[in-house]
C-alpha cells in the first residue's frame, strides 16, 4: 500500500506529460489560427463565464442525472438477465438469440426509431442510455456465471446446497469479477451514449446539448470547455468505480 502511495505522484506526473505537450501545441496554434483553435485564454474566460451564469453546473448535473438514471435502470436488468441466462439454459435459449441480434445495432442507431415512438425528449434519451448500460452488463454477467468452475459446484453438491444456496454462495460470488467488468463497461457506455443522445436530440439541458448549441453559435471556446468537462468527469467516475471494484473483489489475488 505504502509502496503505491509513494508512487502515485510519479504516475500522475507521467500521465500529464502528453496533455501538457498538447496544451503547449494548442497555445501555439491557437495564437496562429484563432478561428480554428480558440486560444487557452479565450477558453479560460468562457469557463469563467459558464461558471458564473450557472450554465455549466446545470448542464453537468443534467448529464450526470441522465447517465446514472439510465445506468440504474439498464445495469441491474442486464445483470439479472445475464445471470438468469447463465443459470437456466431455457432462459438463454429464449432470450439469447434476440438479445444477441439486437446488440449488433449501435445504440445511437436506435435513436430515430425510439424518437419516433416516444418523441424527442427525456424518455427517448433514457431508453437509449439504459439500453447501452444493459448490454455490457448482460453479456459479462452471462459469461461470469457460465464460467463458474464445476469443481466449486461439486463442493456445493457435497454440502447439499439448495438452488438458492448455490446461486447465493457459489454462482454469484464466482461471477462477480466479470459482473464488475460488465458494470465498468456499462458505466462507460452510459456516459458516452448520454452525451451522444444529447448531441443528437438537443433537448433540455446537458453537456451534449451545450456542445451542440456551441457548434451552432460557432463558440469554439465553449465547445472546448464542455469537451474538457466531459472527459475529466468521465475519467473521475471511472476511477471511483475502479476503487469500488477493487474493494469488492479484495478476495482476488493481486489485482493490478
Amino acid at each position, binding site marked *: 500500500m505504502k509502496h503505491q502511495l509513494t508512487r502515485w505522484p510519479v504516475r500522475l506526473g507521467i500521465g500529464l506529460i502528453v496533455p501538457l505537450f498538447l496544451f503547449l501545441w494548442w497555445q501555439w496554434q491557437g495564437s496562429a489560427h484563432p478561428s480554428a483553435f480558440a486560444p487557452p485564454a479565450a477558453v479560460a474566460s468562457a469557463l469563467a463565464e459558464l461558471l458564473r451564469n450557472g450554465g455549466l453546473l446545470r448542464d453537468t448535473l443534467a448529464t450526470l442525472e441522465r447517465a446514472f438514471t439510465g445506468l440504474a435502470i439498464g445495469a441491474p436488468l442486464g445483470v439479472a438477465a445475464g445471470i438468469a441466462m447463465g443459470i437456466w439454459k431455457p432462459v438463454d435459449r429464449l432470450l439469447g438469440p434476440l438479445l444477441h441480434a439486437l446488440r449488433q445495432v449501435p445504440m445511437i442507431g436506435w435513436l430515430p426509431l425510439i424518437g419516433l415512438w416516444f418523441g424527442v425528449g427525456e424518455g427517448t434519451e433514457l431508453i437509449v442510455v439504459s439500453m447501452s448500460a444493459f448490454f455490457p452488463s448482460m453479456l459479462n454477467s452471462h459469461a461470469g456465471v457460465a464460467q463458474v468452475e464445476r469443481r466449486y459446484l461439486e463442493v456445493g453438491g457435497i454440502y447439499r446446497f439448495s438452488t438458492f444456496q448455490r446461486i447465493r*454462495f457459489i454462482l454469484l460470488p464466482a461471477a462477480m469479477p466479470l459482473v464488475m467488468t460488465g458494470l465498468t463497461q456499462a458505466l462507460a457506455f452510459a456516459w458516452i451514449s448520454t452525451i451522444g443522445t444529447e448531441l443528437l436530440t438537443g433537448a433540455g439541458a446537458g453537456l451534449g446539448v451545450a456542445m451542440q448549441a456551441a457548434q451552432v453559435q460557432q463558440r469554439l471556446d465553449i465547445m472546448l470547455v464542455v469537451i474538457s468537462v466531459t472527459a475529466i468527469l468521465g475519467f473521475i467516475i471511472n476511477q471511483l468505480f475502479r476503487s469500488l471494484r477493487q474493494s469488492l473483489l479484495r*478476495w482476488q489475488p493481486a489485482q493490478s
Partner: protein
Amino acid sequence: MSLHPQARNEHAPASISRGALTVGGLHKSFDIGGAPRKILDNINLDVRPGEFVSIVGASGCGKSTLLRLIAGLDTDYSGELRLDGERIATTSLDRGIVFQDHRLFPWMTLEQNVELALLNTGTPKARRAQIAADHIALVNLKGFEKAYPHQLSGGMAQRAAIARALVTEPKLLLLDEPLGALDALTRVHVQNELQRIWMAQRSTMVMVTHDVEEALYLGDRVIVMSPNPGRIRRIVEVDLPHPRDRRAPLLHRLKDEILAELTSGADAAESAGNLVHLPSREAR
C-alpha cells in the same frame, strides 16, 4: 485436541454400524469416443467403522472414480454401494470428501469457508462459528481465520479443506489424493496431522494416494489396485498400532512388496504407456 467426543455424541446414535462401507460387485464404465470403456471391474470391499483404508495404484486404475462414486458425485454405476446398509444414490452430509485441489471458495475467508459446510446440517446459527473455530484449531490454523485462500500456503489450504470436510462430522471421510499437490516436507507434516485427527475422531476414512509410503503409514489396510480396467489386485493388512513410527521395519518391508507388485504390473502393461507414476523420491 479432544474437542470432538461431546460434539459427536449429540447426533450419533449409539449404533455399532457407524460408517460401515460396503462395496460389492461394483462396475463402472465411461463412454469414451462412443464406445463404453470399463473403468472399474468387480470391486469388492468392506470397510469397518472407524477403519482407515488406503487405496494405491497406478494412474488410470479408477481409484479416484471409485471415490467419486462413494461420495455420490457420480451415481451411474452398477453393483452395490452402501454406507451403513443404505444405498448410495446421491451426495450426503454423512460422506465428506477432501479433493487434491483444496477447493476452498476463493471469495470467502477460511472461517467462512469452514462455516459454510454447516449450512444444511441443522446446526443452530449461533453455534456454527464455535464449531468452525474448533475445527480450525484442530488443524492448527488458529490465527488464520480471516485469511483468504490465496493468502494460505498449499499445506495450510489443504488442512483448511480437511477442517471443512470434518466440520459436518461425516461418518465416512473420503480423501482423494489430499496431499498429492504438496511438497515432500509439508506432506510428511500433514500426514502426521491427519493421523492425529483420525485418532481423535475415529471416523471411517478412505484415502486414495499414489504414495505407497503414505498409504502404509496411515492405513489399517492398503488396497492395491491395477489399471485397465481398475481391479483390486491385493489387500495388505498393516498390523501396527497408531500412532506409527515411520521407521518401523514392517512398513518398509510392505512398501518394497507393494512397489514390486506395482512395477511388475507396469512391465506387463508397458505397451499401454508409462502407467506407474510414483513420486520421484520413491523411484530412487
